[in-house]
């Protein structure tokens, strides 16, 4: 009854304003929730940043280390090492990373690949003991 009464006392312009505002609020909520969890890839060598790139843009890049080039692939919002000159290929076995704080390391080739810039509170934990 109250809603019908309310609608009866509004003009088309009133209803249009309400609809626009409601749509804006809902889209903002979806925009916030739907953002990618990690926003950029940072690569460090011996403590110095040697490469950064947004996770949202697909690319393949060669990163030079003391053993030779390591290939980093960014695809579909995820990053992974697809080729490495290191002996055990552990970095390749670490798979894809996409969330803020995720790391891929190639210790022999002195490369550290990190995802950064996402929303901290989306994470299930602060640190992982393993």
């Amino acid at each position, binding site marked *: 009854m109250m809603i019908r009464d309310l609608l009866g006392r509004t003009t088309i*312009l009133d209803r249009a304003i309400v609809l626009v505002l409601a749509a804006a609020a809902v889209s903002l909520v979806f925009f916030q929730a739907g953002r990618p969890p990690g926003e950029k890839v940072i690569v460090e060598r011996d403590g110095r940043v040697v490469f950064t790139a947004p996770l949202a843009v697909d690319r393949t890049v060669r990163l030079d280390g003391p053993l030779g080039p390591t290939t980093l692939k960014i695809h579909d919002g995820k990053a992974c090492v697809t080729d490495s000159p290191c002996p055990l290929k552990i970095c390749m076995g670490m798979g894809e990373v996409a969330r803020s704080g995720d790391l891929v390391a190639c210790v022999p080739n002195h490369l550290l690949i990190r995802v950064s810039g996402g929303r901290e509170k989306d994470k299930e*934990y602060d640190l992982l003991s393993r």
Partner: protein
Amino acid sequence: MSKPSRLSRPFFILLLLLLLYGLWIFSRPAEEPSQPLVRSRLLMGTVVEITAFGSPPDALERAVTAAFAEMARIEELMSPHRTGSDVARLAEAETEPVAVASETAEVITLGLTVAARSGGAFDLCLGRLKDLWGIETDHPRVPTPEEIQAALEGTGQKKLQVIDNTIVKHDPRSAVDLGGIAKGFALERAARVMEEAGIRHAAVNAGGDIRLIGDKLGGPWRIGVQHPRDSGKILARLALQDVAVVTSGDYERFFMRDGHRYHHLFDPATGYPADRCQSVTVVAPRADLADALATAAFVLGPKKGLDFLKSYPEVEGMIVDAAGQLTATPGLKGRTQ
């Protein structure tokens, strides 16, 4: 001329609420109000990451850099692969006393204590056995029983003695390996350096071995514990502060042969990888103690291991046995989220 809008009071309030909600969404901060400084280095064969809160930023940066430098210094002392390190010189020595840094003597003293209390489940002299298996190399193999028996010569806590800052090997075949404790000690030293610099909220994470300083600005740190058989899952989440957390598992460094998993945590009694557990997580006041206890409990197995952890009053732990069953000390259950 158009007819003016006839907005009622409840309708106006509704509009106002929607506007306020939109403004709140726009204006709220995307990140936490106080951002930590996060820095990483490749040290001790793993990724070391330090997360620290505080100000001013340049002082925080200096403290974190000093903590990394301290860990690198400990690595120089205790790595068996660094020429001239204390451990390398111990490897070359026969039975003559070897002068070492006070830090090395401290680590070996703690290691011998854990070795004695665990009945030999923790052993600082497994260097030859580790070399024989080559688990952490690109050519691991299953040695013959004879080779294993020969590599076990010179093991056992009674083969080492600490006299002030001097180490004596009573058997020239003893190959000191501090792999089960040195990383924890380096974490402890890094934490000390940062505390001395006035940092009250920080975490040092060396490949999953963690030392926490204080809480995470107003709340405990949320520590996920890796599931030993599903790398995408966590076993538990612990709410902790001002402690060290170390997990030893058979899933980090291993190779498969004929359907059998051969990993890097050796039982000094047999010379083979210990097979009673999948993982052990220890929460302790010090990282070096947590490091050594996690290895010892892993070798002891779920029942003896848990009893062993309970014998340390300030230590808590959880063990996943070979069948995947989880048990924990009573004190840890209250901190699990």
